[in-house]
C-alpha cells in the first residue's frame, strides 16, 4: 500500500528520466502525499516540484487528471504539468514521477500565525476562487485540508496535491476523515462542488479551533457526529462568529458551488464585524474583572468611612 513508501532521494542526486532523459537535481523534500513524495528540484536554473510515486497505476491516475485539467485550461491559466517519466531509485528500482510548477509559499496555518488573523477573510476568498475555477471545469478538489493549501505573499493561494481531484459525479478519490462530509453524517462521498465547500468550512474551523475540533472527533460517537457540533464551535469563536452563518450554509450544502459561496463570502467581508480585531485576550479580561472588583471594594470602604 501507498504508506510503505521507500524511495528516498538525497540532496544533490541527479535524476534522469528513463524515457525522455530530462535531468533534475534534487534540492530537498517538500512534502509527502498519499501517492508519493514531492521534492524541490532544479533543471536549467529553474525550480520545479517533482512528485515520485511507488505505484505506477496510482500516480498515473493522478497524472491523467492533471492532463485532462491542463487540456481544458484556457489562456491565462498556468500549466503545471511539465514532464512525466520514470526514474531509477537508489535501490535500482524504477519509480514513476512527474514534474510540476514549484509553488513558493507557506502553509495556511503558518501564514496566518505569521501575518496575523486579519488575513483570514481574504485568504478564504482567494481559496474559494481557486475552487470555483475547478468547479467550473467539472472537477471537485476532494482532499481539501489545511496541509493542501499554500499561501504566498499578500494572501495568494495555491492548492497542492491533486491526488483527490475527482470528476463530478464519481466517487471522491482521496479524502481526509475530519474534512469529509460523510464522516459527519452530512452527505455522500460522491463528487459534487458542495463536497469541497463542506471541507472548506471544516478547514475554517480547523484553522481557528484545532484543539476543540480534535476533541470533538474523540468525544462523539460515530452515529452522533453532525455539522451542528461544528457550528457550535464556530459560534463560540470570535473570529469565526461573523462567518458562522456562511459556514452553516456550506455545511447544509446550500451553495451550489464555490462561485456562489465566494459571492456570499465577499459580502461578509464588507461588514464591519468580520474585520473587527479579536477582542481582549483572556488574561486581560481577567485583569479587567479583577480591577473592577478592587475598585468596587475600595469605593465601598470609602463610602462606609465617609458615613
Amino acid at each position: 500500500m501507498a504508506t510503505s513508501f521507500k524511495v528516498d532521494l538525497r540532496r544533490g542526486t541527479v535524476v534522469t528520466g528513463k524515457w525522455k532523459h530530462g535531468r533534475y537535481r534534487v534540492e530537498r523534500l517538500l512534502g509527502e502525499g498519499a501517492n508519493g513524495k514531492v521534492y524541490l528540484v532544479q533543471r536549467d536554473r529553474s525550480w520545479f516540484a517533482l512528485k515520485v510515486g511507488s505505484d505506477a497505476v496510482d500516480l498515473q491516475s493522478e497524472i491523467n487528471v492533471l492532463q485532462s485539467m491542463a487540456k481544458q485550461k484556457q489562456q491565462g491559466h498556468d500549466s503545471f504539468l511539465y514532464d512525466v517519466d520514470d526514474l531509477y531509485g537508489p535501490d535500482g528500482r524504477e519509480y514513476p514521477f512527474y514534474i510540476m510548477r514549484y509553488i513558493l509559499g507557506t502553509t495556511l496555518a503558518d501564514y496566518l500565525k505569521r501575518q496575523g488573523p486579519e488575513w483570514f477573510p481574504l485568504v478564504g476568498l482567494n481559496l474559494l476562487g481557486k475552487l470555483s475555477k475547478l468547479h467550473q471545469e467539472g472537477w471537485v478538489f476532494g482532499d481539501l485540508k489545511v496541509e493542501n493549501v499554500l499561501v504566498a505573499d499578500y494572501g495568494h493561494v495555491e492548492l497542492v496535491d491533486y491526488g483527490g481531484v475527482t470528476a463530478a459525479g464519481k466517487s471522491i478519490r482521496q479524502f481526509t476523515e475530519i474534512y469529509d462530509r460523510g464522516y459527519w453524517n452530512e452527505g455522500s462521498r460522491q463528487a459534487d462542488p458542495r463536497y469541497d465547500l463542506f471541507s472548506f468550512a471544516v478547514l475554517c474551523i480547523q484553522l481557528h479551533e484545532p484543539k476543540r475540533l480534535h476533541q470533538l472527533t474523540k468525544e462523539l460517537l460515530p452515529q452522533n457526529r453532525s455539522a451542528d457540533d461544528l457550528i457550535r464551535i464556530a459560534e463560540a469563536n470570535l473570529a469565526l462568529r461573523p462567518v458562522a452563518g456562511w459556514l452553516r450554509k456550506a455545511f447544509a450544502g446550500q451553495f451550489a458551488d464555490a462561485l456562489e459561496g465566494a459571492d456570499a463570502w465577499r459580502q461578509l467581508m464588507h461588514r464591519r464585524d468580520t474585520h473587527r480585531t479579536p477582542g481582549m485576550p483572556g488574561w486581560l479580561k481577567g485583569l479587567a474583572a479583577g480591577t473592577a472588583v478592587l475598585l468596587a471594594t475600595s469605593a465601598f470602604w470609602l463610602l462606609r468611612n465617609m458615613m
Partner: protein
Amino acid sequence: MKQILLITDGCSNVGLSPVVAAAHASSEGIAVNVVGVLDHGDVGELGATEIDEIARAGGGLSRLVNMRQLSQTVQMMTRKTVVQTIQLAVQKELKQVLGNGAIEALPPDKRGEVVRVIDELGETSGLQVALLIDASASMKPKLAAVEEAIRDLMLSLQARQGKSEIAVFHFPGTKHGDDCVMDLNWTTHLNGVQAIFPKLQMGGTTPTGPAIMHVIDFYRRGDYGRQSRDETDGMMSGYVV
C-alpha cells in the same frame, strides 16, 4: 468483482487452515483482504504472520491497524483491491497484445490510456464485498469500531457509479459449533439497520479457515438466501449459514 474482507485480532485455532481457505477463495475469483486489529499490544508474531499469509494466498492485501485507523483502512483496502483486480485482468490482456503484461513497462503516454480504462472500470463495475468478522471473546470491545468501519465502507461504496453490495458474517457461531453466522445478506445500503451485530455471544474458538470456506460457499451459490431477500429487504439478522 468479489472480495472477502476478514477482520480479526489473532490466530485461528480450529479446523482448516485459513491460508488454504484463502487460496480456495482466490481460485474462485474472490480476493481476500485481511485487517488485523491491534489494541495497545499486538497480535503476536504468529498472528501477524498468519494475517499476512492469508492475504497472500487470497490475492489480497493485509494491514495491521489500531482501532482509530480501522474505518480508513477498510475503505482504502477495498478500493485498492478493486483497482488491483482490474489491473490483473488488464495485464492479462496486455500480455496477449504486447507479450509483456507489466503496466510499468509501457511508456508514460500509453500507460495513461491503460490507467484511464482501469479507473473507469474500477468506478463502474459491480462489486460485492463479504465482510467476515472475528467475534471471538477478545474482539468484543472492538465490535463497535468494526460496525462503524462497515457503515463507513458502505458510504464509500455508495458513491461508486457501479452497483456495490456488502454482506456481513461473523464467526464462530453461537451454538452447536456453527463455524459462521450471517448477520446481513447482500445489501446496497444500511438505512434502517439499527445494529449489525445484535447481542453476540462470544465463543471461545476461532475457526477462521472454516468460516472463509462458508463465505466462499455463500458466493458460489449465488442465489443463496436471495429468495427470502425480498421479504426481508436484504437483512436476515442472525441467519445461520
